[in-house]
């Protein structure tokens, strides 16, 4: 037998999935996250599922939000930054903008590396790559003396290093030689070889900040796994939606920072639909990702805590609306969120001291969840207090408690639907042609209602929606990205240059694969050009289906098509400029869908409760998910409960289970 393991390490829980590679059968568990030493929690979960078969596990993939949390909580490494003379303050000045335009108390994000830890080297490369002042050890000596023994991690980012890496390489070479061997050195050209010094220095500083803890974690985990007889490969999830060998991830930690929510997006890309809007509703946020033509959407630039990051990142769009979102009164207007009751005090119904009504409370009042079966009945809910809270809240608007609760739900659902609409329409996508895939604890509770607002016909709730993200990670390909800035007009571009640029990138990628020990396996290269009309700043990425074919007319046509889709117009009189060349290599992993479950018994309701949809009272059937097997079909209004999630089937919707054990909901009109 051969197995694969995945761990999705969240702030509170670590989700574990063990997958049988041949059958697709999998087991899951949830353990508490151990923030002081993440490997402890991970291993506890691994031991539970795979304790007796580590030797049969071929690979392990894990993603964690711990790097991100260390940035949020400012718990990263003691770092230094080395830069070009005259440019010490680029990092602190940032782009000097002020996003909160009426807030005279606005603060920029506090730099991760304070000014006193930023050092200048008297060197210079010009914009065209000419080295005007070379780096020597003599020039570096003063900086070396100050760095030696004082820092765990050093970022190096020199002006114009994207145009010529020589000086930056030399600085790194000297530092590697002169500093303690445990000091991690981050070179900007290795992380992001793109023009724009602030964005590059920000990315490098973030990497330097989280690399030491990432390395510690990877070493600790792989040591423990070895002790348990694991001989396979340990991977880490990247923000791009691909995996990277853990040892490599230690030096490119910034690539893994946003890996938390991407598992769900990858999972969505494996579900057998071409176009999917995937979302997860947690306690405080609503996270959406989009799969178009079976491909996850990624962006080339993301933002972490206000700092730009030049790293390919799965587009996950979040708004502050979740189960804990508080309903409040502003000048006689009903508002829901973005403030959340969080886990403590939590919603009123949790009975932990929460007084303000939340979205979760509204669902309880409406009978959209079964108090008896919430979290498998492990949590007792205080219905009475919840009703009182809504009675009081509704009174302020002359509404009864049911109408008020329905209002809170509807406002939140609309906010989420608006977010999806903005996100899709902005990309020139019509949401009506998509299916919704809902996962996480509360996603399936709101999915059908949001689908109705968007005129979406189909909602999919996968097996084990509560650990879907971990399951998704098992389907992530090995992925590496690289790119370079090389600006030219499309018209002036020569075939030789075009080929050379991509050839160079491919060599780079093959080099990384070699380091990972991957050779001779099936692999796929994706080439893109970032282009814009001459004079614009923002670029659009255009895929080059075959980089061995140089067809300017085709490139121009593809660009215009995408431009037209995004903005509703394009201009044939404008000149097109190429800015960046990008290349991605993917080494696919085995993808297996979950097997079907069968049963001879008809799907039978567990109990019936009373609840409300569109102000009408209904008897609602409650089903256990275990009882619904491939081929089962039920009709709304109904609720399906399972340990980690609740699915609502509104009146007029039906739900059936497909051969991969996913629940499919469709609106009855069809």
């Amino acid at each position, binding site marked *: 037998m051969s197995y694969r393991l995945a761990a999705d390490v969240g702030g509170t829980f670590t989700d574990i999935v063990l997958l049988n590679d041949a059958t697709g059968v999998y087991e899951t568990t949830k353990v508490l996250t151990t923030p002081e030493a993440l490997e402890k929690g991970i291993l506890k979960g691994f031991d539970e599922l795979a304790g007796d078969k580590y030797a049969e596990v071929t690979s392990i993939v894990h993603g964690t939000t711990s790097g991100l949390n260390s940035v949020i909580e400012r718990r990263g490494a003691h770092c230094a930054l080395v830069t070009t003379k*005259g*440019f*010490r*303050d*680029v990092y*602190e*000045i940032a*782009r*000097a*903008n*002020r*996003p909160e*335009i*009426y*807030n*005279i108390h*606005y603060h*920029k994000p506090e730099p991760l590396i304070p*000014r*006193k830890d930023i050092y200048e080297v008297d060197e210079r490369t*010009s*914009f065209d790559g000419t080295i005007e002042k070379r780096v020597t050890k003599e020039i570096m000596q003063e900086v070396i003396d100050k760095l030696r023994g004082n820092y765990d991690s050093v970022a190096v980012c020199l*002006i*114009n290093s994207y145009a010529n890496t020589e000086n930056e390489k030399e600085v790194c070479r000297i530092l590697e030689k002169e500093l303690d061997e445990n000091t991690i050195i981050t070179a900007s050209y290795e992380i992001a070889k793109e*023009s*724009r*010094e*602030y964005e590059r220095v920000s990315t490098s500083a973030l990497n330097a900040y989280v690399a030491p803890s990432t390395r510690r974690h990877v070493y600790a985990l792989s040591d423990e796994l070895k002790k348990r007889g694991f001989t396979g490969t340990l991977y880490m999830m990247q923000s791009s939606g691909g995996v990277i060998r853990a040892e490599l991830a230690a030096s490119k930690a910034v690539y893994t920072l946003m890996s938390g929510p991407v598992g769900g997006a990858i999972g969505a890309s494996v579900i057998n639909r071409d176009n999917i809007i995937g979302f997860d509703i947690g306690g405080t946020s609503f996270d959406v990702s989009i799969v178009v033509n079976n491909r996850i959407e990624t962006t080339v630039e993301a933002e972490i805590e206000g700092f730009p990051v030049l790293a390919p990142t799965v587009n996950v769009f979040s708004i502050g609306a979740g189960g804990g979102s508080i309903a409040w009164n*502003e*000048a*006689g*207007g*009903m*508002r*829901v969120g973005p403030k959340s009751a969080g886990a403590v005090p939590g919603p009123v119904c949790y009975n932990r001291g929460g007084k303000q009504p939340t979205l979760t409370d509204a669902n309880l009042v409406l009978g959209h969840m079964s108090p008896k079966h919430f979290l498998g009945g492990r949590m007792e809910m205080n219905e009475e207090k919840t009703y009182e809270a809504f009675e009081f809240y509704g009174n302020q608007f*002359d*509404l009864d408690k049911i109408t008020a609760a*329905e*209002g809170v739900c*509807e*406002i939140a659902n*609309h*906010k989420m639907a*608006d*977010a999806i609409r*903005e996100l899709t*329409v*902005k990309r020139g996508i019509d949401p009506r042609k998509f299916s919704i895939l809902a996962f996480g604890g509360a996603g399936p509770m709101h999915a059908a209602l949001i689908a109705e607002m968007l005129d979406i016909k189909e909602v999919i709730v996968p097996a084990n929606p509560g650990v879907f993200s971990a399951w998704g990670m098992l389907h992530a390909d090995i992925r590496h990205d690289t790119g370079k800035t090389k*600006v030219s007009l499309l018209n002036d571009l020569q075939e030789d240059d075009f080929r050379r640029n991509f050839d160079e990138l491919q060599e780079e990628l093959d080099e990384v694969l070699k380091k990972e020990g991957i050779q001779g396996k099936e692999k796929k290269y994706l080439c893109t050009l970032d282009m814009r*009309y001459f*004079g*614009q*700043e*923002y670029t659009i990425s255009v895929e080059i289906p075959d980089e061995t074919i140089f067809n300017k007319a085709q490139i121009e046509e593809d660009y215009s098509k995408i431009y037209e889709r*995004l*903005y*509703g*117009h394009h*201009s044939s009189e*404008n000149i097109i400029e190429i800015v960046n060349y990008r290349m991605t290599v993917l080494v696919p992993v085995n993808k297996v869908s979950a097997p079907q479950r069968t049963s001879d018994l008809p799907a039978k309701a567990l109990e019936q409760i009373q609840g409300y949809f569109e102000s009408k009272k209904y008897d609602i059937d409650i089903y256990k998910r275990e009882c619904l097997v491939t081929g089962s079909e039920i009709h709304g209004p109904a609720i399906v409960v399972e340990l980690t999630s609740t699915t609502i089937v509104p009146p007029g919707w039906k739900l059936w289970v497909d051969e991969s054990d996913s629940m499919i909901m469709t609106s009855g009109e069809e």
Partner: protein
Amino acid sequence: MEDKINPIVVEIIRNAVNSAAREMNNCLIKSAFGPGIYEMKDCSVGIFDKDAKLLGQSSGLPIFLGNLEICIQIVTEKIGIDGYKKGDVFVMNDPYLQGTHAADITVFSPIFYNGKLEGFSAVRAAMQDMGGKNPMGCADSTEVYQEGLRIPPVRLCVEGEINDDVMDLLAINCRYHSMMRGDLNACISACYTGEIRMGELFDRYGTETVQKAALEIFRQSEQMDRQAVAAIPDGEYLAEGCLDNDGITEEERPVKVKVIIKGDEMTIDLSGSAKMGVGPINCGEAQTIAACRVGYKELINPEKQVSGGTFRNLKVIVEKGSFLAAEEPAPCGWYFTGLGLLIDLIVKALAPVMPEHVAAAHYGDSNVIQFSGYDSTRKKQFVICEATAGGWGAFKGSDGQNGMINVVNGDLKNWGTEFIESKYPLRILSYKIRSDSEGAGKYRGGMGLERTYRIESENDCYLMLWVERSKTTAWGLNGGLAAKAPDVVVNPGTAEEKHYLKTTMLPVKKGDVVRISTGGGGGYGKPEERSVEALKQDIENGYLTLDHAEKIYHYKQ
């Protein structure tokens, strides 16, 4: 009350309209050709009801707040409410009507639903150039006619078709023809986006419900504003400062602010401020009102969405003949210079009664630096024009921010060194924080910045500068001190060293060095009360020199 509208629907509509406005803004920014829009976000969009009352907005630039509606009102007055046809798009830039200056254009279109006029979607955006005697504006204009093409409200699209005559006329009058076309197209498509999204909302709820919801949204905003103003003690609160000059004549130009609080109403009276000047600091009244709204908004519910009900309890008084109520043919090219001061003065006036809300002054002006000429490397004409960041004011409990863009420029981003060097014949020698430039205080003001350029072109180049607020620098509050003034020096440390603040078309040649230093922000509280720990860190980080810390803060090691 049978008229009462369901509060749930109101909230859904409120969120949806703002979502629609954000979508318009995205559409504009992403498809624009001019860096003023896509990079500096020098733009603003709004969705209005048919009485030109704001329903939802998404804004990059605070001073565009609340003067889009007047453009719609002007056209409605001119052509009548029945004069609009579906698909019409209007364009205008007349500073005496809309405020701002020639380079900012307003584009708006009526929103029709089922053949009936139901509202408007509008865009304000900065164009790269609007003609005029120098590229990207000049520092020495004495008439509006020198500042570029002046456009009264005209139809850019007629019933959905672009009016090529107007488009051609505008494009040819601007130095970058195709950029102008591209940006106008972006504005048009943003307006149409607004109409489409509002149409969807009408489909769902019907126009009557949306109208009723709008009234309720206005009521909520108004109530919040009135409550906040009522909490301020009644009285008259004064503040004044001055601009260095008007760019042409030497004398200082006072700005006088009297804020009158009476019950839940606020009046901002600007009487006694300077008369219209010869130089280009004049500002259309619509724009002055918009600036007062920014000052108001900084203190009254800054975190709340603006709607047609916001500012209903604000009255602005500007005297006829004031430079803040410019009339033809007064030049308005640098209208925003007085506004930065005006906004800070409103805050200063109310400082004694709103100690938790205020902050000391920020460096205050855009401090614009522009290079132009012939680029011998790239073999073409070039212009690069940039507003520069400086220090912000300290406030109770916090130091001011170092190097951040001034209030009138909103979310504008600076240009990076690599960007500048790759596009223009300039070398950046350094870009750094200007030590000791802060207004000292228990909480110190932010530091100004310093950027040093070297000219790389073999051909003749020119320097234009508009740097203000050297006389009324960023003041402190509660015993905090004022910050350092800005300064520009050409060829520092040489025999030809010379200092400037404003200049037009000053010749510069290859190898010349230009250094611009911006002012800091004002301090809050007495400097001698600053903690030793904070001073130690300031010195360690190099924000303050030891000498300065000892002298101003009485720091002892």
